[in-house]
Each structure stands twice: as structure tokens, then as C-alpha cells.
């Protein structure tokens, strides 16, 4: 009888333990955090540690074994003019893109704060470039900039801005090619920055605007001395996000220019890929990709500090 009772009680006991577990705050917190932790460790932490290890070895795509070579791969990368060109291009690409993104996102956010019909639809449209896969968007832009079928050239010619002999080769001239990839990147980053800024602008209490109006503050005074200081922490978060995304991105360049013409749009991320994967020198590719790491660590530190400053206590 006792044996039978304990047998019957077993499932009930297990069920109640499961029930208690499901109600436990501590368990739930870990269960919900676990996928993010696994994701970061597997897709960010592990490759990063691997890149650190690769960069001090002579590993290639075709070998599983490697010897320790110290900083030789970093020196090797720095001997190449292509590397210094990529450093210059990375800074140019990142800084110009972000400057444009911030100005345009600020303007867009202010426009989106206005009341008008179909506002939700406009917001949805603006978010699309961020939501859609970047590779798909870049392929679309590739056709927009195509040397034969460019819709920009066709339109500008048909509305009379370009003459019959004018047909810019967007991706075939270094300056235009850089302008093209910056345009695509701005198009891609604008929605996120605009939404972040919109949150910042929306967070300013209406009382402050009213007080400024009563005190007779003009447009510039209101913008520069009241609104800007209030939204600055959030704007900086948008800038820092943008810098990290832009400096480490290679998809736009990989699809649109492949670093050309003659390396004039090559950035560190794309050079690392071409050297490591296409060229087969994984070690040098890893070394190139790590050059931005100290700078990005500093930026990440700033981000965390700013995030703490913007916390509402």
C-alpha cells in the first residue's frame, strides 16, 4: 500500500516541482536571459576570441594547424598601402555617413512629431530600410547605380538636368563610388537614428516648451539652449550606435563596389574579408579586423557610460 501510494504521488511531486520552477522569479530571469547570453557567446564572443588567436598565428583557410608568429601579421598588414587606404576610407565612410545621419534623422524626427493624416503609415515606411535585409536593399541600390540602367541618370536626363552626353558612372569613379556607398549607408541607418531621436524629442515635457515660449525664447535659442541639451544624451547614443554599425559593416561595400574602383572604397572590414577568406590568409584577415577594436572598445565604454547617465532614477 505504501509503495503504491508513493508511486502515485511521484508524478504529482514532479509536477509540483515543475510548477514551482515556472513560478520562480530567479529561474525565469535566467531562462529569459539565457538565449541572449548563448547568442552573444556563440556569435560574438567565440569568433572574437578566435580572431584574437588567429591574428597571432600563421593560420590559413586551408590549414587546421598553425604556429605562433607574434605580431608578425599586424606588421605584415601595415606594410601594405591597401591597408592604410582602408583605414582612411573607414574613417571617411564612418564620419561622413554619421554626420549626414544625425542631421537628417534630427530633421525627420521633428517632422514625425507633427500631427498629420497617415502618420503611422509614414513611420512604417521610414522604418522599412532598417527592417528589410540589407543585402536585398543593397542589390536594389546596385541597379540604381548601374552603369547602363541607372534610374538616377535616366530620370535626371529626362527632366533635363543631365544633357544627352552626361551619364555619370556612379560606381566607376572613386569620389562618386564613395558618395554612393555613403548614400546607401545613410539610407539604411536613418530609420534607427530617427526613431531614437524621436523618443528623445517626445520625452521633453511640454511644460518646458511652454516656459520657453512665455520667456520669449527665439527659434535658435530654443533649439540650441533648451532642446539640444535635453536630447543630447540620446543623440549621442544614436551616434555611437551608428559609428559602431558603420565602422564594422562590409555588406554594403561587398555588394555594391567590392572595394573598388582600385581599393578606393575598401574599408577595414571588407579588406579583412578579402584577405582572410578570398585570399586565404585567415591570420592577416583577423589582424586587419582587430585594428579597429581599441577604438570600438572606447566607443562602447562611452556608450555604457552614456546609457547610465540617461537612466531615469
Amino acid at each position, binding site marked *: 500500500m505504501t509503495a503504491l501510494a508513493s508511486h502515485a504521488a511521484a508524478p504529482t511531486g514532479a509536477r509540483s516541482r515543475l510548477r514551482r520552477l515556472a*513560478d520562480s522569479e530567479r529561474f525565469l530571469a535566467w531562462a529569459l536571459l539565457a538565449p541572449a547570453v548563448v547568442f552573444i557567446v556563440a556569435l560574438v564572443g567565440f569568433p572574437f576570441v578566435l580572431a584574437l588567436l588567429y591574428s597571432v598565428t*600563421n593560420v590559413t583557410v586551408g590549414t587546421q594547424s598553425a604556429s605562433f608568429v607574434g605580431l608578425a601579421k599586424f606588421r605584415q598588414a601595415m606594410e601594405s598601402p591597401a591597408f592604410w587606404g582602408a583605414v582612411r576610407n573607414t574613417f571617411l565612410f564612418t564620419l561622413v555617413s554619421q554626420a549626414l545621419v544625425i542631421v537628417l534623422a534630427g530633421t525627420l524626427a521633428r517632422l514625425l512629431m507633427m500631427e498629420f493624416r497617415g502618420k503611422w503609415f509614414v513611420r512604417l515606411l521610414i522604418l522599412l530600410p532598417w527592417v528589410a535585409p540589407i543585402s536585398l536593399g543593397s542589390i536594389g541600390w546596385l541597379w540604381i547605380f548601374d552603369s*547602363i540602367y541607372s534610374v538616377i541618370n535616366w530620370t535626371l536626363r529626362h527632366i533635363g538636368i543631365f544633357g544627352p552626353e552626361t551619364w555619370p558612372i556612379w560606381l566607376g569613379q572613386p569620389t562618386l563610388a564613395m558618395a554612393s556607398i555613403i548614400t546607401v549607408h545613410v539610407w539604411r541607418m536613418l530609420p534607427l537614428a530617427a526613431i531614437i531621436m524621436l523618443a528623445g524629442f517626445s520625452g521633453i515635457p511640454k511644460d518646458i516648451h511652454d516656459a520657453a515660449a512665455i520667456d520669449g525664447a527665439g527659434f535658435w535659442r530654443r533649439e540650441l539652449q533648451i532642446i539640444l541639451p535635453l536630447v543630447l544624451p540620446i543623440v549621442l547614443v544614436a551616434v555611437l550606435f551608428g559609428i559602431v554599425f558603420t565602422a564594422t559593416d562590409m555588406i554594403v561595400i561587398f555588394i555594391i563596389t567590392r572595394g573598388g*574602383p582600385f581599393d*578606393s572604397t575598401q574599408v577595414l572590414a571588407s579588406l579583412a574579408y578579402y584577405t582572410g*577568406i*578570398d585570399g586565404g590568409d585567415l591570420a592577416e584577415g583577423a589582424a586587419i579586423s582587430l585594428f579597429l577594436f581599441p577604438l570600438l572598445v572606447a566607443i562602447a565604454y562611452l556608450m555604457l557610460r552614456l546609457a547610465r547617465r540617461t537612466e531615469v532614477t
Partner: protein
Amino acid sequence: MSEQKTRGVTRRTFVKAATAAGLAAGLGPFVIPRRAQAAKTLKILQWNHFVPGYDKWFNNTYIKEWGEKNDTQVIVDNVGLVTLNSRAAAEVSAQKGHDLFMFLWPPPVYEDQVIDHAEIYQECQRRYGKPIDLAVRSTYNPKTRKYYGFSDSYVPDPVNYRKDLWDDVGMAPDTWDDIREGGRKIKQKHKIPVGIGLSAEIDTGMAMRAIMYSHGSSVQDAEGNLVLNSPQTRECLKFVKALFEETMTPEVLAWDASSNNRMILAGKGSLVLNAISVTREAENKKMPIADQIWLAKAAKGPVRRIGLEHVMDVYTIWKFAANIEGAKKFLVDYIGNFRQGFLNSEFYNFPCFPSRVPDIKQLLAKDSKAKPANKYAVLTDVLDWATNVGYPGYANAAIDEVFSTWVLNTMFAKAATGATSPEEALSEAEAACKRIWAKWKEKKMI
């Protein structure tokens, strides 16, 4: 308890449902019964062929027939050519992947990861006769004496030109000087440029090497020593600069692997170097321009008439492949059936074992789609003017890296546009080559 309720769903229910869904997704594939399968599996990765009919035949007919005969389920994954390198690197890194991996260029950098393919060559030679020299030079490392791949076919790279435009200026593109002069005249008269790539892509790599080899220049000599810095290379740089300035537009600096086709089929180009996918696409789509696009042999330079293969099909079998024996048998059998491959690729893939298409001359001389019917006859003696990447030596790991990182493409583009002087461009390229050579010598692969 009621505090934890959110619109009727308790936290407990949510955790249970999420756990159940996770378990179902994770275990489902192992639990759900599968259909009966063949005893063995053979997985192949290869590119999306430029002639779609080839993939249709290979994927839907050939592998099914072969699979039935060999009690094997054959699975083919087709990928874009630009992703081949990253897929190969991923498979090696994971030590898992396809049984047969097809590259479109020699992949000596993976030599340590692949089996010695000598046995396949030997068996094919026993059955079908000798392979062509081009195949051997694209898959054999004389330093390690290992075949790091097996080439079933190569693709000729003729000159594709607009017959009407070239007739109009009274010329034919037979030599590189003809191309420069005729191209200039056509551009002046019709505002239609020549389209030879100067970009970071495969066609440019082939075209620039064709110019170099025909001018007596090369990256390495027959023994594999670096000889890029030579008076002949300087001449080539000057020639390409003149060719670019006189006959082309900057669009060649943004070239990709399909730009050749787009340009000439849109009627916007007088001449390109490409495989016959240009003419085949025009014929298959019944484009009026098809009859005006003619083919010529690789152009003759001051030293010789020579060009590259446009694409070198190289199958490799990883050491970690699950079905090595099946992969070997597949290749040997495929060579046996290669005539079908030649026909279904519409003459795009040429045989590395010539005996398998004994009537190739007759086929090329009379094509049902071409106008004139003998348009493709110009390819009959292709082996007299097509060579391998790495000429006059073998394709090796250093040559592969120079090719894949577009060292020569960048050198020519910089010199042609005046971004640097020809001397500076050569000096930069030579420095890059020296670094690459030193690296692979240290690894004892060259």
C-alpha cells in the same frame, strides 16, 4: 497567483508552451519518420551555371539517373560564384560539408584539406585517354606532387565583338593593336566603347592576364619564381592605360562578372572578352543583336596569341567528406558521360578529356541556334591559345592568392586611370606579390 496573469495567459503556461515549442523544434527532425532513402548520399556544391539549361539537366536528369544506378541519393546545392570561397572556408573550418566541392578556379590553397586526386585522373586516363595539359596545370602542385583537384572541363574565353560596328570601321579584332585602334575608331564614330574590365572581379583577372601573357609578361616563370617586375609588364601597363583612355569609359572600373553580358547585349559595347554565355543568352532570348555578336580567338600580342580559360571547373573532395568513394566514382562516371555535359552547357563547358566529345569539331561547325551556323567554329583550336592562371608555370597557392585578392586588377586599374604612375602601380603590386610568395614558401607549398 492572479498577479502573474496577463490577459489570460499565466507565466506558468507561457514557460510551459515555450519549453514545449523549443523541445519540439529541437527534437522534431529526429522523431518525425522520414521517407525511405537510398543507401548512400552524395552531396555536391557547385555554382549557378551561366547557362541555366545546364543546371536543369544536371540537377533534374543526370544526377537522378546516376543516383538510381548507384543506389545513392545525390543532392546538389547551387550557389553564386562570389560565395564559393566563403563556403569553402566555412566547410574546412567546420570539417564538414559537401562530398564534392566545385571551384571555378584552381584552389591550391586548400591542398592540405583535400585528398590526392591522382587516382581519379589515373582511372579516367585508363578509360578515356590523356587529360589536357591545361587541366593538369590547374590542379597539380609539382612541389608537393599532389593533385589538389580534378578538372572535368574548362570554358574558352574568346573575344566577343559587334560585327556590324567593326565592319563599319573596316577592321577585325585579331590583335591587341587592332582592338585598340578599332575600338578607338568605333568609340569616336558611334560613341560605343570597348568593355574590358578593370575591377576587382574574375573577368578582369582573366583579361589582364591575357594581355600580359600575349605581351611576354607574367607573374611567375615556368619554375614558379616571381618575375612580375619586367620591361614587358611595364609595356602592358602603358598599353592598358592607352586602351582605357582611347576605347573605354570608367564603367569598366565598376565591372562585375555579368557586366560583359549586360553591356554588349544592351548594344552599349563594341567588344568584350567573355565566355559564350553572351551569344547563348542573345540566341536563347531571340534578341535581334544575337546575329551581330561574333566570336574571335584570343587576341594576338607582340609575343604570341594567347588568352586564359574563362572558367576552370575544378572539383575537390575534402579529406573529411562523408562519401569519398562515391565522389570519386561520380567524377569518373561524369567524364564518361561528358558529351551530355558539353551539349547541355550549349558548348560552354569544354572537355578536359577530349576523347569524350570526339565530334566536337563537327558540333562547333554547325550549331542550330547560331547565325552563321559556324559561329562557334572559332573555338575548335582553343587549346592552341588558352592557358592556365599561373602560365607559364602551374597554378599554385601564391598565384591563387594574387588572383583572388585582385593584385593585378588593382595594379592595372590604378595605372590606367592615372591614380598612380605605371611604375608605382607595378612597384605596389610587386611588393604585395613578394609578401604572398614569402608566406607560401614558408609553408612549403611553392
